């Protein structure tokens, strides 16, 4: 049994990670001692029933209490209000970092430059991982000369989040390597956990869906609707097909720029077809998803994140349109309808027409998606996560070894010419390896 310090957003925080936590924690707390560390002002009562909730001040963490745990598990995404404090703890106390986004540039830029007015910290991080090119691009970005969309793609800064980690977990296999952001610590890619709702309740939802007179068919977009959720393309596609009256689109969630979207709806003449609902309660979500026919879950560019919403759509047996990118590109071909980033509008329109031509085929697609949830069993996830954590713990002296190697490298370059330093570097690296890698020289 591990004694786990868990750092993540917790309900009622409006975060996918808080929803994810509620999938994992009940299972984790059954077989491990878990302390839920938070700097949130309020944590939902149901969380307190799962494990002990402890408060910390980011500036003065109670290290003695935290060190009572065997290992800390930190959950990081791009939202600075939620994740900056967790990141600050994680770089001080090595633990397992769970990357919910794989491009964390926005987190570090917003936290350092906007929140702390510490431009140097951001520039140093960019230089640390991308050299002079990184620093120059960061300076240009701060000066407004580079687009906010290209920076996370070109400079994900993910290694900044894992630079002191014992291990890193993602929900998307191979993604870190593709980004060229593989950290120095061990990594594991685990399927995002989701506990499928039991069959009787699912049958009730199916009955509710069948009970909705159709057409019009109900389309649903759901979650935190940032710029990369492609709402413009969705609206344009819908407006551009003659059969648009056969659809109704429910936009549920927080929009990055609501007034812009409202203006687009107006401009495209979609007022009678599209409804904005804002952030919904759990009951409202259930009502919307159980009566929808097709969900739209696009991302471009992707920050490498996996989507709990996607698993929730499948839980309701909903067929889904997704962008063929990042984690979404790895989803089963027979359970999703792919949209290519380069031809978004045309692909969305083709799928909508295909839906009208054969709604049964799409319904079968949604059912296959629901069946695929067996790969996302939280029990399996927790087992894999804790095994990985235990293995990573055994390698923790590596953290000291790497810190020492960095320090020696940096010290020597200050006073010893490169030509004279080879003996010392070789001796020191051999000794560091012997001392901390746990392998005696032969």
């Amino acid at each position, binding site marked *: 049994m591990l004694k786990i310090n868990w750092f993540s957003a917790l309900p009622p925080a409006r975060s996918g990670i808080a929803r994810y936590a509620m999938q994992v924690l009940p299972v984790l707390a059954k077989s491990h001692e878990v302390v839920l560390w938070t700097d949130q002002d309020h944590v939902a009562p149901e969380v307190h029933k799962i494990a002990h909730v402890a408060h910390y001040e980011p500036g003065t963490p109670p290290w003695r209490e935290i060190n009572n745990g065997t290992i800390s598990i930190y959950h990081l995404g791009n939202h600075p209000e939620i994740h900056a404090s967790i990141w600050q703890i994680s770089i001080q106390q*090595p633990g397992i970092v769970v990357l919910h986004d794989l491009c964390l540039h926005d987190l570090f830029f917003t936290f350092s430059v906007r929140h702390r007015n510490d431009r140097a910290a951001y520039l140093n991080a960019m230089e640390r991982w991308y050299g002079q090119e990184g620093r120059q691009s960061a300076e240009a970005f701060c000066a407004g000369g580079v687009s906010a969309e290209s920076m996370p793609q070109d400079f994900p800064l993910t290694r900044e989040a894992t630079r002191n980690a014992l291990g890193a977990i993602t929900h998307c296999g191979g993604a870190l390597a593709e980004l060229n952001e593989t950290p120095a610590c061990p990594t594991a890619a685990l399927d995002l956990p989701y506990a499928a709702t039991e069959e009787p309740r699912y049958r009730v939802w199916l009955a509710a869906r069948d009970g909705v007179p159709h057409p019009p068919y109900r389309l649903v977009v759901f979650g935190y609707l940032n710029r990369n959720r492609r709402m413009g393309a969705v609206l344009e596609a819908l407006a551009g097909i003659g059969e648009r009256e056969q659809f109704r689109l429910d936009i549920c969630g927080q929009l990055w720029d609501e007034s812009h979207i409202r203006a687009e709806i107006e401009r495209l003449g979609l007022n009678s077809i599209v409804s904005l609902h804002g952030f919904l309660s759990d009951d409202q979500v259930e009502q919307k998803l159980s009566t929808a026919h097709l969900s739209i879950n696009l991302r471009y560019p992707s920050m490498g994140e996996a989507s709990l919403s996607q698993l929730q759509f499948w839980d309701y047996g909903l067929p889904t349109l997704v962008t063929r990118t990042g984690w979404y590109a790895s989803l089963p071909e027979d359970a999703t309808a792919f949209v290519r980033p380069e031809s978004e509008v045309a692909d969305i329109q083709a799928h909508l027409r295909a839906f009208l031509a054969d709604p049964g085929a799409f319904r079968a697609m949604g059912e296959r998606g629901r069946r695929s949830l067996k790969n996302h069993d939280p029990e399996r996830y927790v087992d894999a996560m804790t095994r990985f954590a235990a293995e990573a713990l055994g390698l*923790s002296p590596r953290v000291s070894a790497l810190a020492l190697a960095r*320090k020696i490298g940096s010290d020597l370059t200050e006073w010893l010419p490169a030509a004279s330093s080879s003996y010392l570097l070789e001796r020191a690296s051999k000794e560091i390896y012997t001392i901390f890698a746990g392998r005696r020289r032969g």
Partner: protein
Amino acid sequence: MKILIATSSAPFIRGDAEVLAGNLVEALSEAGHEAELAVIPFKGYPPGRIPAQILACRLLDLTETCGTRIDRVVGLKFPAYLIPHPNKVIWLLHQHRAAYELWDHPAGDLMHYPDGPVVREAIRQADRELIPEAKAVYAQSQSVSGRLLRYCGIASEPLYHPPANALLFHKSSPGDYLFFPGPINSADRQRLAMQAIAQCRERVRIRFAGEPGSLTEQAEYFNAVRKRKLSDRIEWLGRVSEDQKRDLYANCLGVIFPPVDEDYGYVTLEAMLSSKPVITCSDSVSLLEFVLDRQTGLVAHPTPESLAQAMDMLWADRRWGAAMGEAGRARYRDLRISWANVAEKLLC
């Protein structure tokens, strides 16, 4: 033989370990060898610096001096005992205790740092990996040896040494007090003894020697004595000379010494050399190697009630106390506690 005693020490701090290292050099010299100290300055905070100090030790070359071979290195303290040498023997005074049994103890400091767990594992890893390089591993006491086995899986042999000026300790007729030698600190639990005396049925008296860590602490003790109306039964002697200390041992009825998890504890040995029984506690780990309950002293539970009972017993039956004191002296002799024995073991 040319022998280097490799140890580490915080500069300007002189404690038991430094005295021991000096005595060892003397003992080896008396045995006809050239012995010298190699003291590595050590600073254990912030913890992130400790791995660098391990590495610094590993990079030292103690194989020769001015073209002459150094025949043996004896490692005493962390991280100096990790210095490599083809003919090294470790006599472990103690490991970096904050990474082991003091990890979650109030006296441990590592736990208060964010990188404490990682540094703890690095220290343990280094010990596990590098201590077995030594040709032989001895420990200053059974408790140190037990910890090395428990935490690192490394076997070692306890090797006892005498306190300073062992030959000068002597015995005299039992007087009318129990002696509690200093220094005064929370680990030695003078406070527990004060709570106990208040519960004694006999008119037990204790004479405490040693200085408290601070004036505040001293005031606390004095206030406690006044509050409990024990002024006629407790005497604070403050700092005493070595001669006075030996006389206090010689003339007491018995010695009381119940420290928490003491690694060696010269007090017990000094009491045994003075033929006095020792009252200690069941959690005063290393003392239990020497204090055999009801044979060479009394082992109480670490509670005021239990300690009071032991004090009453010793106070009431002085002949029994004297007999236990003699048995303690005999046990000291049987254990062959001498510097000559230490030198012989470390060089074989």
